[in-house]
């Protein structure tokens, strides 16, 4: 298993290298970080443009620029934004923000997906199966931004009206400035109140698709010979479903969830925007692409790609744990 992991990591490094080069090429060809200054009125002096071009290394040869970035990135220096803030500093904080938003959501989503998926399979064609199928398809069909807006309008509004106070919040991670004059429970409950809606939104939307995977995997397993054998040996139905069925049926879900989490770390872009969490997704869109900032885009690419690779690797390793027949070598 060790060699397997090493081989996978080496292959991933190659993929990262190629993708960073491609993204660098695209960005270098289309970004003009000076664009927003040409039409200031009056226009900044010529020396301003010369200086900025020099500072951002725009005069250098394309390959040299890439090399500068790459050699820096290898040593953990992701360069600076066009406004001079180190990218690495910002990335670290942003991962935490995104992490905070998705951790609870993913845990809830996985549990819900398994429970709903198993129920759907075990009670196939019964009312409960139809009910969950309907619910899940509604959730899959809902656009994130709309679902989030509905949550804010009705759930936040309803709960707050019910308590007659601000319990659930729709913007940011905590009430701005609260940490200046509050501490302890007040601060923590405020943060929790900010966390609920984005978590619910992410969890429900992610769980919906995942539960379909779980349901079909479970159906597959339920019809297999070893299940019948287990029952014939005299095991209880419950025990066969959980021990023999569920464990095998978890394998496909593992892959889907691992990929999903890896991607989520790149930013739950819409959820972040709607609930105003300043995480990875916002970093790519507004600070990177919006500002024509090549270092931000590449920094984002590298970090989110690392998460995708990492979670894929974990999925592969989990395979072996879940299915002893698989030997990684």
């Amino acid at each position: 298993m060790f060699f397997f992991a090493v081989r996978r990591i080496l292959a991933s490094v190659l993929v990262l290298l190629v993708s960073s080069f491609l993204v660098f090429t695209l960005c270098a060809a289309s970004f003009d970080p000076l664009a927003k200054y040409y039409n200031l009125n009056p226009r900044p002096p010529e020396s301003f443009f010369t200086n900025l071009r020099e500072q951002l290394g725009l005069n250098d040869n394309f390959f040299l620029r890439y090399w500068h970035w790459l050699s820096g990135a290898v040593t953990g220096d992701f360069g600076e934004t066009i406004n001079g803030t180190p990218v690495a500093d910002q990335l670290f904080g942003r991962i935490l923000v995104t992490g905070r938003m998705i951790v609870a959501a993913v845990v809830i989503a996985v549990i819900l997906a398994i429970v709903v998926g198993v129920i759907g399979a075990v009670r196939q064609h019964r009312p409960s199966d139809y009910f969950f199928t309907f619910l899940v398809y509604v959730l899959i069909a809902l656009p994130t931004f709309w679902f989030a807006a509905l949550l804010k309008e009705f759930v936040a509004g309803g709960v707050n009206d019910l308590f007659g106070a601000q319990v659930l919040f729709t913007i940011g991670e905590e009430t701005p400035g609260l940490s200046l004059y509050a501490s302890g429970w007040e601060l923590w409950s405020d943060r929790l109140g900010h966390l609920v809606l984005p978590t619910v939104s992410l969890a429900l939307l992610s769980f919906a698709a995942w539960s379909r995977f779980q349901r079909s995997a479970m159906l597959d397993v339920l019809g297999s010979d070893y299940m019948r054998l287990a029952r014939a040996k005299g095991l209880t139905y419950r025990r066969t479903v959980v021990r023999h069925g569920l464990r095998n049926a978890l394998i496909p879900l593992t892959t889907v969830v691992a990929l999903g989490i890896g991607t989520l770390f790149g930013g739950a872009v819409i959820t972040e925007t709607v609930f105003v969490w300043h995480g990875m997704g916002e970093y790519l869109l507004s600070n990177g692409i919006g500002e024509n900032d090549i270092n931000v885009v590449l920094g984002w690419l590298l970090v989110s790609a690392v998460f995708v690779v990492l979670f894929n690797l974990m999925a592969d390793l989990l395979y072996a744990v879940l299915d002893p027949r698989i030997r990684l070598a």
Partner: protein
Amino acid sequence: VKLSKRSAAVLAAGVAGAMTLSACGGSDDGGGGGSESGGSGQVVFGESTDFPENLFPLISAGNATSTANIEAQLFPQTFEVQPDFTVKWNEELLTEEPVSEVTGDTQTVTYKLNPDAVWSDGEPITADDFDVAWRMQRSSDPANGGCPELLSTSGYEQITAVEGTDEGKTVTVTYSPPFADWQASFTGNNSPLFPAHVVDAPTQEELCAKVAAGWPIADGIPSDISGGPWQLKKENIDVGGQIAVLTPNENFWGEKPKVARLVFQNIGNDPTTAVQGLSRGELNMIYPQPQLDLVDQVADLAPNVESEISFGLSFEHLDFNSQDPHLADVNVRKAFALALDRQQVVDQTVGQFSSDAEVLNNHIWKTNQPEYEDNAPAEYNAANPEQAKQLLQQSGYTLGQDGVFTHPQRGRLAIQIDTTANNPLRQTTIEVMIPQLKAAGIEGTFNANTDIFNGPDKPTSLIAGGFQAAVFAWVGNPFVSAQPPIYQSPQGDAVGQNYARVGTPEIDALFAELIRTTERERQVEITNQIDVLLWDLMPTLPLYQKPTFIAYSSNIDGVVDNPTQAGPLWNASTWTVE
């Protein structure tokens, strides 16, 4: 659904994990606060533009709307631009109105500083602070001891001396040649006074190095210095959460703020977020780009929320590139303008927001500025396709089978109108124009040009000149020195910002006089003369001013939108919260 013990444990672990992560990333800025200041309540301002990365306004990194909003009342300014677009001297900083005198080729401006005026650390505000502002901004040429990072040296490059007498409380600034916009020096969120005892350095090189580095947001403003009613302390900046909290400056000599905290929270530009934040009470004020459904939704929140549309200094116009074979002919440019019904363009665009929207009929002044005169010849006030056709026929065009004019040398009169991509307002503007042009035998087409504002290396940018006509905006101001680059004749390749690439010696001469004229009445006369000439030359056609939109909880008293660069928070220190 019943959870097993193990699942419940996993769920709990997940929630706990999220909480722990919160603790890691959460701001550790407790303890600050300004509750001791006597003000009460707070106002949360939802900032829709990017969070600042740098707080020093003279350089590109600090050139952000969010920085300007935060610093609206942090650093003293000699003059302040009022919501009615007039310029008023700062009665807290100065004891009397500054006097400007011109003798020959030199101009002296005398400022009398309030003897009580001090920085937040108790240091008096003196001539030294004027002096350092000048030395930082007098040149952008490193060979000349200048700082190349500067966005502008306008005015400061003409200053020859800054002298202080009377213990530095009387400041005499000498310009040579005279500077028309002397009131704009040491004025505005983007070039206020800076505390010399904090920013100055022993040598010009070190001073420039300080300018180049600016004030990165993570480090805050050096020494938390302030010279206005508010103060931004480093401990009150939460970079990760994109929140900045202003508290009253304890040492402010003038009227202190009546609100305990002014909170800036970045909310991005999603209109639904802004409206829901306002209706849930999480935000107390928003200042977004107006969009129709946003304005309607906010109107539904009355009476808890008040809102107001104003027309600001930013205006849309149509640029004709005179290097195009068709548009090089002034008759074609005029025919284009005659064909358009600008009132209809206004009705279909900004007129949807407010019935106060008007067609703009001056190249330099905006309809709500006191200097505004309607200089447009009457024939441009409505669509005039017949007269347009006559002009085109005079220039040798003949009407083709398809209803579009053609010229024996220049070919078919098809003009592509470029504009920025993803801008619905500008797209509508052009789409309304196209059938109007068609009625006069001109084929107009819409083109979203992503390179339009890029540099000279992109062939279709405004600077490179690879366009026929273009719709975009300029931001006006109460001052005049920004105008010449837009309308002066290009000198060879140096087009400045005259993207129409056309001018006349007469206009150039008037501009030359304007930039040395310090009396306001004369400035207004000259600029309106220039405007009359521009209507005859038709390098650009003004269309309309863009609206600004402010919405705020109705328990805040004293809010007056300032649709100039001063911004909505220009008078935040006078607000009260019920």
